């Protein structure tokens, strides 16, 4: 992981006169030169609309855009590109599954199971669907070690269960969820499974066919890609029974004055001009990650997490909200400082150039379960170093000093 920082211009920035230490990767990652160059290259050489032009530029744009669909499919080991729908972000991907599949497959009295770890993106759509359909929402609780309580999950499953929606990794506790096991248990009662992969894709190797989940959603911007691109993987066999969540150009086959027929596969769900340039630049992000290697990135994340937990544990005023075994968490570490609000922690760290997130992390029910009003959170990625953790520690000492903790 040497010299990686050089690929990220932004990491040379000064914040309040200090070198930027970016530890808010669970919110969004920074973008390497390769991704920025890809954007620039597309707009300066091949910019055109896709799927509709005969001219050279349109053909180039279409080929590049569809090429990334193939690349994404390979990256997560989908069967082929026909299982990859592009959306604007992970939230839209989950909403697409909710509207396109949920509205026709969830009925009154059906049960939807979500976990206590969910981000609002994988909770609120299901709350609304349950409300609309008269379905019942059930929650997998946590163990004291911030893991999902699989015993409780087993007792929630029944023939009434139609869908299980679960994150692969919590954006608050970092908990890595055994999604393969959860999927197998859901399939045993005939339920479908949606996995929110926003925090895990780009951090470790994901194999959707090994997990065997029915839907898998994630965002490009958390894995070095541009904002404005999300992905919904759907098992191809399910797609034909799904109705579009948006209608308009490009997703149609033929249009009569009073009716229309729709394209098959993922194209049915991409109405209107998509985010062509950003999807193409997303392809460069995937190439960049593959060049470094997903196993190397996962090992790097784990090493930094272990180091940070070790450093922070020295301070009795700091409480960590992280599973006890290092292999049970990804590159996210939430904490509180006794007597200091997380916002004040973030303000003082920012003064030292350290960017962290504080607050509810779009996971209000989970924060409530943790018994606090908010947490501070650091989250790592491939360009972070142990030195970054040391700078954060120095800034934390300042927090303790200012608040006389």
């Amino acid at each position, binding site marked *: 992981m040497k010299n990686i920082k050089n690929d990220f211009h932004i990491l040379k920035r000064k914040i*309040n*006169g200090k070198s930027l230490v970016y530890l808010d990767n669970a919110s969004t990652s920074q973008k390497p030169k390769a991704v920025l160059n890809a954007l620039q290259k597309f707009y300066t050489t091949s910019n055109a609309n896709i799927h509709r032009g005969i001219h050279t530029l349109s053909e180039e744009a279409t080929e590049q855009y569809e090429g990334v669909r193939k690349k994404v499919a390979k990256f997560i080991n989908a069967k082929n590109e026909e299982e990859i729908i592009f959306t604007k972000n992970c939230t839209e991907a989950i909403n697409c599954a909710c509207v396109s599949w949920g509205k026709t497959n969830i009925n009154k009295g059906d049960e939807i199971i979500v976990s206590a770890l969910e981000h609002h993106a994988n909770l609120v759509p299901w709350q609304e669907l349950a409300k609309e359909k008269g379905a019942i929402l059930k929650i997998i609780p946590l163990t004291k070690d911030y893991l999902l309580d699989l015993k409780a999950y087993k007792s929630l499953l029944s023939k009434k269960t139609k869908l299980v929606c679960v994150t692969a990794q919590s954006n608050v506790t970092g908990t890595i969820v055994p999604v393969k096991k959860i999927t197998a248990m859901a399939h045993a009662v005939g339920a479908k499974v949606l996995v929110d992969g926003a925090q895990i894709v780009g951090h470790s190797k994901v194999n959707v066919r090994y997990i065997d989940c029915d839907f898998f959603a994630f965002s490009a911007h958390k894995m070095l890609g541009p904002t404005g691109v999300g992905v919904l993987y759907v098992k191809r066999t399910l797609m034909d029974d799904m109705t579009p969540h948006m209608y308009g150009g490009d997703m149609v086959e033929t249009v009569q004055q009073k009716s229309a027929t729709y394209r098959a596969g993922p194209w049915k769900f991409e109405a209107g001009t998509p985010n062509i340039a950003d999807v193409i630049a997303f392809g460069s992000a995937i190439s960049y990650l593959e060049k470094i290697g997903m196993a190397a990135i996962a090992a790097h994340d784990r090493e930094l997490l272990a180091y940070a937990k070790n450093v922070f544990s020295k301070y009795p005023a700091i409480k960590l909200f992280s599973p006890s075994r290092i292999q049970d968490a990804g590159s996210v570490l939430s904490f509180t400082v006794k*007597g*200091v*609000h*997380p*916002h*004040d922690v973030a*303000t*003082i760290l920012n*003064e030292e150039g350290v960017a962290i997130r*504080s*607050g*509810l992390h779009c996971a*209000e029910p989970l*924060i409530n379960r943790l018994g606090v*009003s*908010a947490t501070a959170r650091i989250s790592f990625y491939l360009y972070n170093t142990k030195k970054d953790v040391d700078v954060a520690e120095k800034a934390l000492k*300042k927090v303790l000093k*200012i*608040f*006389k903790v």
Partner: protein
Amino acid sequence: MHIYYMEDIYTETILDHYQHPHHYGKISNPTVKVNGDNPLCGDKISLDLIIKKGVVEDVGFTGAGCAISQAAISLLADEIQGKKISNLKKLKPQKMYGLLHIPISPGRVKCALLGFTALQKALKTLQK
């Protein structure tokens, strides 16, 4: 570009009001009770007022939040105790910034005005 130094924000006054807030606690049988929250940071407060003859006779608040929001409510509580409701209606956010006497960055406006906003809500409730 604004550069704020910690000494500018976490002044002795702010830290003192945060760690030893004035008027902290519930008041029994308040004339008006309102809640305020800041969904961004999870801050939640409750403000109790006892009004007699158009004057704030007693004020109390509970809840938790960042140093800025808690110090602001504590300072505001001191400010409004004994004041006429008719005067409080004229209070502007500027007054709150003046009481805090620290630079407030855009991200901290909601924190600074959490108590102020709750007070506005209380005044509206009283009017009904």
